């Protein structure tokens, strides 16, 4: 056990060391810079010369390097999983309701008009004072359907719509940067459209941040655990899958969603916990990462590097608009700026994609982003290593770039193995002299066994027993899918016009298995045929069907089975509209007062942090009330 503590002790020692350089954040606007192209060309040239001079030695050297990398990656991942068991969530302090700060939640959406009610419903369940909650629906101006749906939907008061002007580059990071300028919270969090955060999540985040302030811990981000709820279908007491009246699964699940759910378990409960425990940079997940606004401002890009949106450059750009895993890159930037990232003892329910094609798209985007982040870091490797600390730099690079590289190389090992088994080629045998062969076999068998074992252990830990049979039988196709995503991501980077930059993941998809879909189609066709046969032919000038609203309004009318949902929704909307109208102008005034107080609190926080930084003697238990007073004074001044 002492041995297990060694990496932790070493890393903590490193963390205390003063940083030798200041981290300069760069965007992924240019994928590969000139010097990087030169370096790449030199490497390729060296390999070519090596192949011409002595092909066998060169290829063996490449094999050895590949195996060394594979071993290092496996060892690193295993270390993370092992030390994850020692991770403890950061302490929290109780924060009374009246001292809860203003909180901004960002909900970037594109082409998801159907998800507006889901977002509202999810935030309605959040336990946080509404007068201190600002939910920004971040919509693209060009996505008229979603904008119109949001405008027509009876949004609660604390919701605001932010229309992001049409400007390149498109995507979530730029939209979030734009929305951040309108955020008034002391803390900020991002949620995807399908997210259902645990109701207490915002409170827990505040309590954790406040405890960190009391400890003078530079906590820069809290990452809540993401859980794919559709890892397994919703079942009844007898184990039967629950379906809606149309025959679709209430909680759609496929083998893909099971693998994705399992990967999330491994990632958020083991890998990130291990990274956080070791004090290494945490590549943040796409949503549910909570930041103090000041940290985002601290880590923000130079506005000169940012695109013009709506006639001005983005001023508080925390996310790289050109990076498709902007959150992972931000995790590195936060660490490079001296802040830490911890895991929040809370979760957010998400929805996994269901089909291999959608998974391929999503994964290729993630891996593309990982590659972008790695390439940005490698523009000035020496300087960045000094700024982040060598171990942190290496750890982050291994986590983002190593993942891509390992998946990229995996098909080569499989291809070589299969080719050798089929052909018994002496050429392949020559590539693997004794020690290399043993290392390769060990890596091939032991490495895959280790990764599958981690997945199985994670599934058992989460009691996802139904996923075990998929994990044990389909891990090879899944591995191929991930490798294909890695190759796709690389091709997309090399040929940028090949595909749109942002492979949007569709949410709110209904699903039935192929067999069930076929059965549904047959039964629907039979039902329609029977209904058509029974219906009287409409008279000329008479509409074929009465509108739903008319059915609902007719006294004593019983809506058809398919229409009761519409009627219920209309009733709910009417109720919400009425409630909204009941709120008077003085509530608006109260909101304005609260907003003013929020600005003051934010300013106070900034003043206090600045004072704490410059005057070590001021550090100690935080007096928030005094801070607010000072903030108010500075605002009024």
């Amino acid at each position, binding site marked *: 056990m002492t041995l297990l503590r060694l990496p932790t002790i070493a890393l903590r020692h490193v963390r205390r060391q003063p940083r030798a350089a200041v981290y300069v954040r760069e965007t992924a606007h240019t994928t590969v810079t000139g010097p990087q192209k030169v370096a790449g060309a030199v490497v390729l040239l060296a390999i070519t010369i090596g192949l011409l001079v002595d092909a066998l030695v060169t290829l063996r050297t490449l094999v050895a390097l590949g195996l060394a990398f594979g071993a290092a990656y496996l060892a690193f991942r295993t270390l993370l999983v092992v030390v994850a068991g020692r991770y403890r969530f950061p302490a929290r302090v109780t924060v009374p309701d009246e001292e809860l700060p203003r909180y901004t939640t960002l909900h970037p959406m594109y082409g998801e008009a159907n998800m507006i009610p889901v977002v509202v419903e999810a935030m309605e369940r959040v336990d946080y004072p509404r007068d201190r909650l600002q939910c920004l629906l971040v919509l693209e101006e060009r996505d008229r359907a979603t904008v119109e749906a949001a405008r027509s939907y009876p949004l609660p008061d604390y919701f605001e719509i932010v229309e992001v002007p049409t400007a390149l580059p498109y995507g979530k990071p730029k939209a979030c940067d734009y929305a951040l300028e309108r955020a008034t919270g002391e803390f900020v969090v991002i949620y995807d459209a399908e997210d259902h955060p645990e109701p207490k999540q915002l409170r827990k985040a505040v309590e954790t941040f406040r405890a960190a302030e009391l400890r003078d811990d530079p906590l820069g981000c809290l990452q809540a655990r993401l859980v794919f709820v559709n890892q397994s279908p919703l079942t009844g007491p007898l184990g039967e899958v629950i379906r809606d009246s149309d025959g679709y699964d209430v909680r759609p699940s496929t083998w893909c969603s099971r693998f994705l759910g399992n990967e999330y378990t491994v990632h958020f409960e083991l890998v990130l916990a291990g990274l956080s425990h070791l004090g290494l940079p945490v590549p943040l997940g796409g949503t549910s990462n909570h930041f103090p606004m000041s940290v985002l401002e601290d880590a923000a890009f130079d506005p000169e590097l940012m695109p013009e949106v709506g006639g001005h450059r983005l001023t508080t750009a925390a996310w790289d608009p050109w990076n498709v895993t902007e959150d992972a890159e931000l995790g590195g930037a936060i660490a490079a700026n001296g802040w830490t990232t911890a895991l929040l003892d809370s979760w957010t329910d998400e929805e996994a994609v269901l089909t291999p094609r959608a998974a391929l798209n999503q994964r290729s985007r993630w891996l593309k982003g990982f590659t972008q982040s790695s390439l940005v870091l490698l523009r000035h490797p020496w300087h960045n290593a000094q700024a982040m600390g060598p171990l942190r730099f290496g750890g982050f690079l291994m986590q983002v770039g190593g993942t891509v590289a390992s998946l990229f190389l995996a098909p080569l090992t499989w291809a070589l193995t299969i080719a050798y088994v089929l052909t018994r080629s002496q050429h392949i045998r020559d590539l693997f002299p004794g020690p290399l062969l*043993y290392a390769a076999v060990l890596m091939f068998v032991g490495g895959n*066994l280790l990764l599958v*074992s981690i997945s199985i*252990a994670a*599934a*058992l830990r989460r*009691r996802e027993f*139904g996923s*075990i049979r998929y994990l044990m039988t389909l891990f090879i196709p899944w591995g191929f899918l991930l490798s294909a995503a890695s190759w796709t991501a690389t091709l997309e980077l090399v040929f940028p016009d090949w595909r749109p930059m942002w492979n949007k993941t569709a949410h709110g998809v209904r699903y039935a298995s192929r067999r069930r879909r076929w059965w549904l189609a047959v039964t629907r066709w039979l039902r329609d045929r029977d209904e058509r046969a029974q219906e009287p032919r409409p008279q000329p000038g008479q509409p074929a069907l009465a509108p739903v609203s008319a059915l609902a309004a007719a006294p004593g009318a019983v809506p058809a089975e398919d229409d009761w949902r519409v009627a219920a929704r209309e009733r709910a909307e009417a109720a919400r509209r009425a409630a909204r109208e009941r709120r008077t102008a003085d509530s608006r005034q109260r909101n304005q007062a609260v907003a003013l107080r929020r600005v003051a609190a934010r300013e106070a926080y900034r003043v206090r942090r600045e004072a704490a930084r410059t005057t070590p003697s001021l550090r100690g238990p935080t007096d928030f009330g005094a801070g607010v007073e000072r903030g108010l004074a500075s605002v009024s001044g």
Partner: protein
Amino acid sequence: MDVGALLALALLASVAAYLWFRDLGTILGYKDALSHLLIGRRVVVGQHPGFGQLGGIWLPLPHLLISTLAWNGDLYTSGLAGSVFSMLAYVATVLGLYGAVRVATRDRLAGWVAAAVYGLNPNALYLQSTPMGETLMYAGIVTAVLMMLLWYRTGLHRYLMLAAVCCMLLVLVRYEAWVFSLALLLVVVHVCFVKGHPFFSGDFSGQAYVLVFTGYAALGVLLWLIWDLVIFGDPLAWLTGQYTSIDQTRDLELSQVADLRVSLQTYAFAIRDTIGLPLALCGAAGMVAMAWRERLSPVFTTFLATAAAGAFITYGLYSGAQPMRVTEIDGDLYNLRMAVVMLLPIALFTGYAVSLVPRTGRVLSSALRIAGAAVLVVLAGAGLASASASDGRSVITSLEASQAYAAYQQERRVGDFVEDHTTGRVLIESFANEWVVFPNQERVIYEGSDQTWKIALKDPADPRADIDVIVMRTTEGNTDAVEKNLNHRPVLTTHFRRVLKTDDFEVWQRKDGAP
């Protein structure tokens, strides 16, 4: 505290036993012990070192372990390169038995008795002093049992995974462990039924547990089949190839083959000779009592699973796959060590029997318990006492080994001759000539040398084979490949001259100046 004390005692007993049997000179008595050392060393030292030397009949894990130490000549020739792992496995088995009975009965004294039944058995102490694979298997079985019990008691998944990983490794140690793993799989199913884990509905937990266990255990077997496929081109080479047990016992006249009664009798006599009748009866009584009191609970079936290896060996005797000879039936001794595996269920059930004595906390009860335990310990150690008194001859496995050792005197002399009087590569068939090969292992071209072996059998003077010495067994009716291919052929007499002839061997050396 118990574990610490037990660890210290087990280590002490292990080292003392090793020194004792080393002085008796029986550590390398079993020919199989020699084979294990040879294979382990071939991986790291020899004319064609590498993992390709693994495979065939013997399962590879013991050899992999031995290879980590067998590069050292002293550790190899003394047998310590293999004995070290057996000794560590012995200690693990003692601790595992204590833990398993303690978990099952929550009784410290019962745990101590179970540990003593195994730990003080002279035949177990002999086997742990040798480089044989048996003790490794015992340790694996007991560890898997302990993990299974912990999983059943606590419900923590990691114990199931550890039990499964144990089985994955176990199936690469000895074939009896395959049957044990299968039996443990049935225990997993049993636990799922008892705990109400559904297999095809609900949360599918039963299915998951069975799949996880099966997946790991089967993976070991699968890897072994793939390995044999790669090395020999036949995944079933271990079953149908040359030198298998079935192949070897085919020509032996074994009384128990196809006679279930004699097979059972043979194994029963072997148990009596290696474990002792009183302890065997105690174990049987404990088993009956446990079956009755525990109502066939998973704890009972887990204990019972350890007897699967014994059942498999008995079937092996019946089917002719395993040879065993006992004096009561055959007049001599052969492979009696295969009965020692029954020490595990006997130790577990005896421990359980001790736990049945009421623990009232009163003086009489405590005295009764301690007295009973003492009697069992004396029974367990009785053989040990007599062993030390009669110069080790009552340790029947050691006796068998010493008899075998004496039988190979000629082979050892030939081996020493080759070592002392010749240089260069030696062509010899390793099978049946292990004692000749043993001191010359790094020089030997043998049946595992692939192409060089084939070339040498055609023409030992071929520069690609570069053979300097040829050793062939000339016993009438032998199957020695070197003798069959080279004896009386011009290619032998032209380039080689005979330098030694014994009743069973001829040694030929290349003539000076021959190409």
